[in-house]
């Protein structure tokens, strides 16, 4: 059991309160019975499609911020680009919890975010491109043929915040063109995702309207399994690949530089974005309303926990990776991981059971 700091005690108190006071899902409309298809359709139209569109728009804005920086380098211009990057990270984090469908195709996930990169492959490639001033990395068309590790957010972060990034304000033409090409690649990949999900005969239709002849979603159960899988798999993914690597086994073993987006200080932003994505999907889909009333309170409680976890991040006075290495604040960082693992267990256990799906054993975490 973790030691309780004030914020954690408060968080658990609120979560416990949620458990007691939680009624049926808030979005429920008594006149309209909730159906499996209704939930799947709402997940698509009210979360997935707008989420990818938002990501694409932020990627476009990213490119629009880099162009003027390259044309007229300046410190304020660099700041504008960095701000756009923060918004792009937030947009991606909220929608990256969707890990099925078009994003799995053609290495899109890895192209957008090559992380974790345990052996630092991406960093080595970036440094090589910079050292050699490899012109093939400065146009999106030619960059597309290069390593997936060079085409996404971690590369862009290094260019905007890593060693030598300040030179962007002073006119490092090559670095700026490279950054522009990466932004364009992200925008391109985001556009592919939007197009795939907006295709009236594509995955959106198959998920909202499952049919036996579909290759992926043949009935409502399979659609709900995918939806449930988002909560189970993504909460574990964030706990294990975004928090665990820098938390280490103890305060002395914390590794702040293993954190995602540590250079930009956006680690907490990204993790809070993942959490917000889970909440938004939960709310938009209304999935909990498919479960019996005695199960719904677990969903409500899980969402309270996610809110508290985001507040914990907001309140941190130092970047999250540094907080993990500080004895005073480490508990709060650890607490985030516990919340996510608890979300995973709640969804793979009680909520899966409430949906009539297998209670998280081999189906959800096969080997």
């Amino acid at each position, binding site marked *: 059991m973790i030691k309780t700091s004030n914020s954690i005690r408060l968080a658990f108190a609120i979560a416990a309160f949620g458990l007691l006071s939680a009624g049926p899902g808030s979005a429920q409309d008594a006149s309209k019975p909730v159906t499996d298809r209704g939930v799947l359709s709402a997940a698509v139209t009210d979360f997935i499609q707008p989420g990818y569109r938002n990501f694409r728009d932020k990627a476009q804005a990213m490119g629009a911020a880099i162009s003027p920086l390259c044309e007229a380098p300046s410190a304020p211009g660099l700041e504008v680009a960095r701000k756009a990057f923060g918004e792009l990270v937030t947009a991606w984090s909220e929608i990256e919890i969707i890990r*099925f*469908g*078009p994003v*799995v*195709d053609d*290495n899109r*996930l*890895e192209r957008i975010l*090559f992380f*974790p990169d*345990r*052996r630092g492959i991406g960093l080595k490639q970036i440094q090589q491109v910079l050292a050699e001033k490899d012109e093939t990395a400065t146009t999106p068309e030619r960059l597309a043929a290069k390593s*997936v590790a060079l085409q996404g957010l971690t590369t862009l972060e290094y260019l905007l915040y890593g060693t030598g990034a300040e030179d962007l304000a002073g006119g490092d033409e090559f670095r700026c063109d490279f950054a522009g090409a990466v932004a364009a690649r992200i925008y391109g990949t985001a556009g592919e995702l939007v197009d795939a999900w907006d295709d009236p005969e594509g*995955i959106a239709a198959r998920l909202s309207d499952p049919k036996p002849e579909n*290759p*992926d979603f*043949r009935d409502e159960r*399979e659609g709900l399994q995918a939806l449930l899988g988002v909560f189970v798999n993504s909460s*574990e*993914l964030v*706990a*294990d*690949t975004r928090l*665990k*690597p820098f938390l280490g086994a103890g305060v002395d073993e914390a590794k702040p530089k293993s954190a995602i987006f540590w250079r930009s200080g956006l680690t907490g932003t990204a993790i809070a974005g993942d959490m917000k994505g889970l909440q938004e999907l939960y709310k938009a889909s209304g999935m909990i309303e498919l479960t019996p009333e005695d199960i719904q309170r677990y969903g409500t409680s899980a969402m309270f926990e996610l809110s508290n976890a985001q507040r914990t991040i907001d309140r941190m006075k130092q970047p999250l990776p540094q907080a993990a290495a500080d004895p005073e604040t480490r508990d709060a960082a650890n607490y985030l991981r516990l919340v996510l693992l608890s979300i995973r267990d709640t969804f793979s256990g009680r909520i899966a059971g409430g949906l009539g799906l*297998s209670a998280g*054993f*081999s*189906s959800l*975490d*096969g*080997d």
Partner: protein
Amino acid sequence: MIMTRRLFIGTATAGLAGLSGLLPKPAIAAGKDLFAAAWIQNGGAGFSILDGDGNELTSVSLPDRGHDVATDRAGRWAVAFARRPGTFAVAVDRQNGSEPIPFSTPEDRHFFGHGVFSPDGRVLYATENDYDNAAGMIGIYDVTAGFNRIGEFPSYGIDPHELILMPGGKTLCIANGGIETHPDFGRAKLNLASMEPSVVFVDIESGELLEKHTPPADLFRLSTRHMDIDAAGNVWVGCQYEGPETDEPPLLLRVTMGEGYKPIMLPDQARHGLANYVGSVAANRSENRLVITSPHGNCALVLDTRSGNLVERIAEKNVCGAVAQGSGFLLSSAEGDFGEAKLGRSWDNHIARLFQER
């Protein structure tokens, strides 16, 4: 719900799913066949030795979730392995009835959940992860010295999962799943953009690579994980596909030493029902039958190993464990089904037989 959980095959009517329950039960003396399987129950984990009717003879707790159980030919040992990325194994000595013997990997390795005994039962080989170097290893344990680890050799790939002993007992066949994982990142898959699955044959004495078979480039996300051998010595490999759900890769491969891969074409509907995930593969050599199970697709398929043709499809929620029994197969599920019995435990993905036939 299926009509019967034990499949009786090898007759002309066997192709008709649902009728199989009407066929006579195989003439097997009760208690002759013994099996072992890992489970979880109410947050606890363990593994059991039990008969085909689900009567438990031995039940041993494990510190965390186990995966497969390795057994020697004499029926003396049953060794349960931790599921990845666990580092423990527990051996039960049925001959001496002594306390279970726990052992573990060295610090910089973890088990993948599968192992196999040498023909004489003196050595145990286990698939392991040299995770800092992203290299698959086969750990070698001396059964006669309390499962002391006496060496290792490479699996010639990453993510070695199931390994089996080829007929003759001189060659190991290892399925390298090709997926990089590291305990620092839990069970997360770290190299989906550059997976390298393979099936290799290795000399059991020298640890030297004899053959390595890799799927064609467009199937680099086809993780080769579970296998068994048919009567003719072909290895049947069940796969898990890490690419898009809309892709339709072959999920069953037949690998023959000296020849290589042959994808097995299943009828569309049957292949589709596997949800791109095969969890277990078991052959019934005397009947020329093979079963593959899919807990994701909630089904099991039985094939004829001579023709590769589908014989039967069984619908069963969360089915995964499979082993030959009599003229058919014994299946288990995470819902508690063990053959015809229903126990209050979630059975893990595999069932091992204690008295082996090869």
